């Protein structure tokens, strides 16, 4: 049901991330003629046989399923580019290579529905798996370095949608805990002696009744 994905409001389910990825544009080559589509989300077509066209991914998949087109592999998904990306990922410990934000979802959808359109599909697939693994390993190791208790903001450069979504709950709670406990009461600072306010019933410190 829409909106029922999680009792905790601010988590996106995997399906919802995929939903967002499905709006990414891809190129298709239709094998039939179709009139212009005036959809709520935009106008696409008219489509002519053998004339490439740009459509959203969900539309491409729908047409592909009915055998009405072939999908052209996005440039970043070629064996060459993926091998380069994998090399670069392995070489650099700190930073992430630039990949399309929804690369996981896009590649997954294409593997599931457009296998025939991908040359060397097994190579491409294993390259993407490897890239995913290397990146996620990097994410895990960088999580260990969240020691700076005063960090109130963390930059995540070039992370993809699925990766962000996976670490979001943990990182969110961790940063919140750091923020809460990282107060200078633990770090004695003799110069500043502000008066302490009496902490009576303080609604901030009371936890909500339902565990998150």
């Amino acid at each position, binding site marked *: 049901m829409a909106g029922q994905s999680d009792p905790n409001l*601010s988590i996106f389910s995997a399906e919802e991330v995929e939903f967002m990825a499905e709006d990414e544009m891809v190129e298709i080559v239709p094998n039939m003629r179709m009139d212009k589509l005036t959809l709520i989300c935009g106008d696409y077509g008219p489509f002519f046989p053998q004339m490439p066209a*740009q459509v959203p991914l969900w539309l491409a998949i729908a047409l592909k399923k009915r055998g009405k087109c072939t999908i052209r592999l996005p440039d970043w998904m070629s064996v060459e580019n993926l091998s380069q990306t994998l090399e670069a990922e392995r070489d650099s410990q700190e930073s992430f290579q630039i990949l399309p934000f929804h690369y996981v979802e896009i590649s997954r959808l294409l593997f599931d529905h457009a296998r025939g359109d991908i040359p060397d599909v097994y190579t491409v697939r294993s390259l993407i798996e490897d890239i995913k693994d290397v990146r996620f390993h990097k994410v895990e190791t960088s999580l260990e370095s969240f020691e700076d208790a005063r960090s109130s903001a963390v930059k995540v450069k070039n992370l993809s949608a699925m990766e962000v979504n996976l670490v979001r709950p943990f990182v969110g709670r961790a940063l919140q805990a750091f923020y809460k406990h990282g107060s200078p009461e633990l770090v004695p600072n003799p110069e500043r002696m502000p008066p302490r*306010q009496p902490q009576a019933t303080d609604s901030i410190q009371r936890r909500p009744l339902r565990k998150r």
Partner: protein
Amino acid sequence: MDSRDGDGSTEDYETLIQTTDVELLKRAWRQEKAAPEILKFETDLITRLTGQIELVEENVEQDSQSGIDPLTVSLYQMDLDRTQFLLRSYLRIRLQKIEKYIFHILATAELYNRLSKQEKEFAKSCLVDLEKHLEESVLSKLPNNYQSIFKQSMISEENDMVAKPQLDTFVVCKTNDYLGHIQLEDNEDGSSDDRANQRPLEEPFEMETDVLYFVRYKAIKGFVEEGRIDLF
């Protein structure tokens, strides 16, 4: 929109895509989902979209009767389904938040004004039902000093039984324009964090465009309301 002819028009194409109603709805949906508190209701956008949806629903009805190519009909239907999902999810999330923080929202004018007309009515009747329910099932059976809905007991100084949204949660966000000098700690606002005036000032924090950050929601609240920061 079905052909790109050069970089100049690609940019316009991008901006055109950015501002379709569905894109705006998707953005509103994401913001609402990621934000710990309820945001302003997008009245105009929702009205426009409901109108469009109804129109397409009628058309699809007619087309499927009149024997137009079923493929086309099913594509229109898919597009309709996607848009309806976004709309429903958006409304549901807001309702969930209203239910969760109902006492707080009704007590705070700023938050109450973020609701749509129907949501306000919903909130009011929900409140009446909830109060009645709590009275009858629990509160009337408690000792006299503990019978308030809002306070734990008569000696509480504030309404501590009221659930308030946790504005301290960390959210993932991205900025549309370069933002320098964001204050991460709330120093001026002594009331919300009584440790604020003890925490040393950090370097002003800057945010580059198109990079994701995990930030405390409270620090960027103003920017989100202005529409300069997108939540993810």
